[in-house]
């Protein structure tokens, strides 16, 4: 990971922390920093250009409303915004089909604790280390995946394709898709274990 991306992750985290304090300037900065990528996500997921713009608006409004719940300890700003746009997308899709479940059925809201902004900021310094480590490891992992494995993960994330559809898309046997995905998943799983080790080290050194 380069110094630049690390700074960028911290920059985004800080913007969201400021938005929690109703800072409109920070909100506009966050828009400038992320909007074009959030829109790219919507389009990759199959939205038309105008639906993608609507999803972007919905996502950013939710960012404003939920900013006080953002905890850099548990996720980077980008991960947090990913969960927001993923959930908004599900809810917008369901709007046309009332029989469908809502995102809060899948990810029940945590009981919203009253978090004071003082607490937020004071906890921020310690937490930064932890979330940076997480982000760093996931990033290293994606970069280390061979292109062919990464391509399949993209298809799962953005297109919601099943294994057999991916096989058809790429003109490869189903078995190949499965084994490539399995390899990628195994690396991610090892990462999860490794990360637990890091978390333990951090906890031990903190107390």
């Amino acid at each position, binding site marked *: 990971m380069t110094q630049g991306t690390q700074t960028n992750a911290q920059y985004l985290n800080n913007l969201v922390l400021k938005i929690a304090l109703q800072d409109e300037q920070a909100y506009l900065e966050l828009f400038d920093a992320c909007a074009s990528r959030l829109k790219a996500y919507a389009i990759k997921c199959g939205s038309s250009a105008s639906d993608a713009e609507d999803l972007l608006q919905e996502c950013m409004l939710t960012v404003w409303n939920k900013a006080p719940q953002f905890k850099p300890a548990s996720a980077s700003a980008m991960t947090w915004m990913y969960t927001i746009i993923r959930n908004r997308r599900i809810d917008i899709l369901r709007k046309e089909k009332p029989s469908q479940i809502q995102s809060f059925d899948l990810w029940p809201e945590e009981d919203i604790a009253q978090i004071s902004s003082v607490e937020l900021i004071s906890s921020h310094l310690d937490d930064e280390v932890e979330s940076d480590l997480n982000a760093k490891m996931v990033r290293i992992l994606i970069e280390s995946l061979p292109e062919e494995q990464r391509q399949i993960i993209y298809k*799962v994330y953005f297109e919601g394709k099943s294994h057999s559809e991916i096989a058809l898309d790429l003109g490869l046997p189903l078995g190949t898709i499965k084994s490539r995905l399995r390899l990628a998943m195994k690396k991610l*799983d090892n990462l999860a274990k490794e990360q637990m080790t890091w978390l333990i080290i951090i906890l031990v050194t903190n107390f």
Partner: protein
Amino acid sequence: MANYHPSDELLMQFAAGQLTNALGIQTACHLESCIECQKKVFIYEQLGGDLIDYSTPVEVNTEAKSRLLATLHAKRDAGQLRTSDLEPIEALEPVFKQQLEHADQRLPKPLRRFVPSYYEHLPWSGFSKSIQSYDLPFSDEQYTARFYKIAAGKELPQHTHQGNEFTLVLSGSFSDLSGDYHPGDFVLANTSTHHQPQAHDKEDCICFAVTDAPLKMTGFFGRLLNPFLR
């Protein structure tokens, strides 16, 4: 603590927001009580964040930012935004909130809105006291979602599956040749599974099953029952 878990692929699809209704709710129910899988989903969500980070930017409409700011101000003036730093706005619409509050709190949270009462009071249906079912209202084009209740100590006719059947144990326990399954356990049976589940003696076993094809009974008795099981 569950001993049987959804596959990593399924958890990744969940984190990607790409599961259908039935499988999504079922996976969410398992996650509620499984820290191990929660950790994996957490990793996959970071992966989602990074994939966004890696995306090639797509140009945003020039007026998008002013539109956003205008909506923000309009909502604030209408009292639809959080107004202080301390109080996040209530995210749920009142109708959903009410549904959740009136639900039986012993049910897994993702199911509460959809199940009218705790298991013993549901309108179970079925031809036999050994196995009864209750259809859940969120089946989708691909998967059927229902509860099964196997009476304490009873054994199901031996059967195989034409497609996939994902089973989450909610209450009680059952066993088959491959193992013992307890609440939170998530088991996948498919065409190669040939089993005869039996509920443990002490209590009825309630399972949340998601199937993409009907069960196929194989024993003599089973063949007789097949038309009733759909």
